């Protein structure tokens, strides 16, 4: 059974490593290596996460008591606008693309992304966009009409400064970065898979990145068009959104949400992919229902384009039954995934590492967020809860309890792949529990506030009912979340300085990224295993049994 095939003309002629004379900083600045670009994505995203987190703390401090204490109303408007914009466009979307950058080529056995230079371009637009966005503060005021920038608010009262225009330009850059990244991921996944790595043998994180990239590719240009129209209205005297000139205000909302609803899935599907990598490894079982998971992912992606107007129920201009039913429907594939995950963990040998704790955190918190959303899918309920803190609770349970927990699961899971060293488990667990408690202290009471009718985006509130007490509880929770990042930072610092190394495959993972060394060489792989299933490392370890039952282990992978 000699299956070794020499493929002399297959690879690059020389070693693709960068010439040793180059200064390390220059090597990073000019790199087209998907791994280095991935790391830069992560570092850049965490930086903006910290900035946006600081803004969130300011919001919570202001809301700790009725009245306006520390920020003027205008400053408060800028705070929540910049917080939302930064979290979504400079943190969650890019950090998931960062994991994708590092991990997807390794998972499918590729040398790099399909277009390495385009990849570098995609990355470098992001810090530039962040600087442009925040330079609004230097021009007398940042964008202030909320991250949704609805006209006519973004046209008239608070949008008179340059801040809103800088916001538009920053988002145009980030959108272009996303689109180029999407083209890159799809091409990489379609054209760069290793021999034997069929589509249905791809790890689920690669699948979720593929569907995410399709969403990015088809949805992001639509918000680009809306941004361009807003720019024309604001600066060139256009009349798209201003009713006084014959324009239509709701037009913005339709185009904006046609992007921004699929963007919700852009922000959570890769998180679901990360969790689907972490749970099987730490339950010592394959993922239950691989194909069902793949089709559920595709289903969420497809349905994601038909639910945008559920953000606009109260405008009175959308067909309520249609968008309501489609929104309820989207809970079905999400439910399928929950059964996948629960059945994966069921009777597994569960290993409670920090990565796995964060994956469980994702399951429980995202479930709450999802159920919150199903409430809002019903128009009568939505009419009551629209623009209250219920919505804020929902979106934070989905994006923080969902995406951010998944990001941390991915960070603790793949950190040894990035550096060759595991993060410290004790500090990791401290980080997890502080964050879990802080998160729920902050956002669980928001449900109550929403039901009591407290409106979002207002810097002041009346000192009646239990509003003050609930708000103070949330502020304590928000500070606890800030504190919880201290053990994380300490952990990364201590681990990076540690001299000794952990095993190449410390979690005993079965997907292809664990086949190579940790961290991988510049060319990723010195060799590749035969790929017969979605768990090539498992097959290689149990090759003895495999020779007898060669076909029995390809679980649904044919």
């Amino acid at each position, binding site marked *: 059974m000699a299956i070794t095939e020499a493929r002399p003309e*297959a690879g690059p002629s020389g070693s693709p490593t960068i010439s040793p004379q180059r200064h390390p900083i220059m090597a990073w600045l000019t790199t087209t290596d998907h791994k280095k670009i991935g790391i830069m994505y992560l570092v850049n995203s965490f930086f903006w996460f910290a900035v946006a987190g600081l803004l969130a703390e300011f919001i919570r401090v202001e809301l700790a008591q009725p009245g306006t204490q520390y920020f003027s109303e205008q400053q408060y408007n800028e705070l929540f606008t910049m917080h939302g914009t930064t979290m979504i466009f400079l943190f969650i979307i890019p950090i998931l693309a960062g994991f994708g950058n590092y991990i997807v080529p390794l998972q499918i056995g590729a040398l790099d992304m399909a277009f390495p230079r385009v990849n570098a371009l995609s990355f470098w637009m992001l810090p530039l966009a962040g600087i442009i966005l925040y330079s609004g503060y230097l021009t007398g005021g940042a964008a202030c009409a909320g991250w949704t920038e609805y006209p006519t608010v973004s046209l008239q009262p608070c949008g008179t400064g340059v801040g809103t225009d800088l916001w538009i330009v920053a988002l145009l850059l980030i959108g272009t970065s996303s689109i180029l990244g999407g083209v890159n991921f799809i091409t990489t996944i379609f054209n760069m898979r290793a021999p034997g790595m069929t589509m249905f043998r791809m790890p689920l994180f690669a699948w979720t990145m593929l569907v995410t990239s399709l969403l990015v590719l088809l949805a992001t240009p639509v918000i680009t068009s809306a941004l361009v129209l807003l720019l024309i209205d604001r600066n060139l005297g256009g009349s*798209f959104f201003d009713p006084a000139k014959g324009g239509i205000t709701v037009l913005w909302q339709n185009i904006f949400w046609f992007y921004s609803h699929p963007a919700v899935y852009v922000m959570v599907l890769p998180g679901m992919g990360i969790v689907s990598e972490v749970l099987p490894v730490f339950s010592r079982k394959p993922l239950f229902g691989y194909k069902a998971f793949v089709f559920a992912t595709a289903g969420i992606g497809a349905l994601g384009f038909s639910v945008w107007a559920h953000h606009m129920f109260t405008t009175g201009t959308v067909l309520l039954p249609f968008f309501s039913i489609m929104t309820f429907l989207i809970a079905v594939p999400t439910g399928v995934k929950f059964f996948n995950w629960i059945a994966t963990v069921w009777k597994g040998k569960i290993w409670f590492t920090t990565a796995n704790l964060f994956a469980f955190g994702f399951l429980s918190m995202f479930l709450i967020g999802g159920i919150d959303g199903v409430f809002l899918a019903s128009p009568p309920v939505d009419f009551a809860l629209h623009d209250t803190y219920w919505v804020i609770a929902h979106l934070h349970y989905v994006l923080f309890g969902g995406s951010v927990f998944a990001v941390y699961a991915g960070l603790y899971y793949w950190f040894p792949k990035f550096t060759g060293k595991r993060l410290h488990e004790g500090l990791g667990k401290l980080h997890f529990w502080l964050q879990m408690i802080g998160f729920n202290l902050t956002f669980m009471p928001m449900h109550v506030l929403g039901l009591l009718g407290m409106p979002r985006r207002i810097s002041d509130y009346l000192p009646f009912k239990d509003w003050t007490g609930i708000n103070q509880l949330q502020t304590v929770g928000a500070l606890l979340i800030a504190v919880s990042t201290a053990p994380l930072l300490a952990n990364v610092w201590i681990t990076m300085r540690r001299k000794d190394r952990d095993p190449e495959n410390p979690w005993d993972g079965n997907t292809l990224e664990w086949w190579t060394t940790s961290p991988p060489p510049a060319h990723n792989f010195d060799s590749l295993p035969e790929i017969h299933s979605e768990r090539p490392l498992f097959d*290689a370890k149990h090759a*003895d049994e495999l020779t007898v039952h060669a076909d029995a282990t390809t679980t649904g992978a044919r």
Partner: protein
Amino acid sequence: MAVADATVRETPSGPGHERAGGISSSLLGMVLFIASEVMFFGGLFGAYFTIRTAAPQWPPPGTHELDKWYALALTVVLVSSSVTMQLGVFAIRRNDQKWLVRWLIITLVLGTLFLVGQGNEYRTLFEEGTTLRSGVFGSTFFTLTGFHGAHVFGGAAFILIVLLRARSGQFTARYHDTVEMASYYWHFVDVVWLGLVTTIYFMSQ
């Protein structure tokens, strides 16, 4: 039995990724990019139709009527340039570098002619007082045709680069993905124009 060895595919020069058949990465990337461009223009067209159907009368009273024959002439120019571009692609598929260069030059001339023609129409409209600021008609007209014109300009720049590379003999029957990419993009720009002409010029009543 050397089981462990048997599961390792030795690849001295790195794992290979060449595949028989399929579509090359650059062409696939171009198709995907064009898909995103389609969605961009979809957003613009969506805005156009929303505003148009909401307006009490279209075109709004007092709007100067667009010259359909002029638009038709521009259409003939742009569609012919698409044909000449494709003839260039056919030429290089036959490994005919000389005719590739010739067809590219003709395409570039036609593309430039289209842009000049569009600029001339803009000048006429400006003189009559129809501008981006003059209301919903001006806003939609100049935004949609303007973004299309910008894409024609981008496509022409692409073709110019391809032309310079073709003149130095960089393309052969086997290696000419860039030529194909430019042709995909150029045809896309052409199709967008057909949509624009139909909706803006001919569905005007």
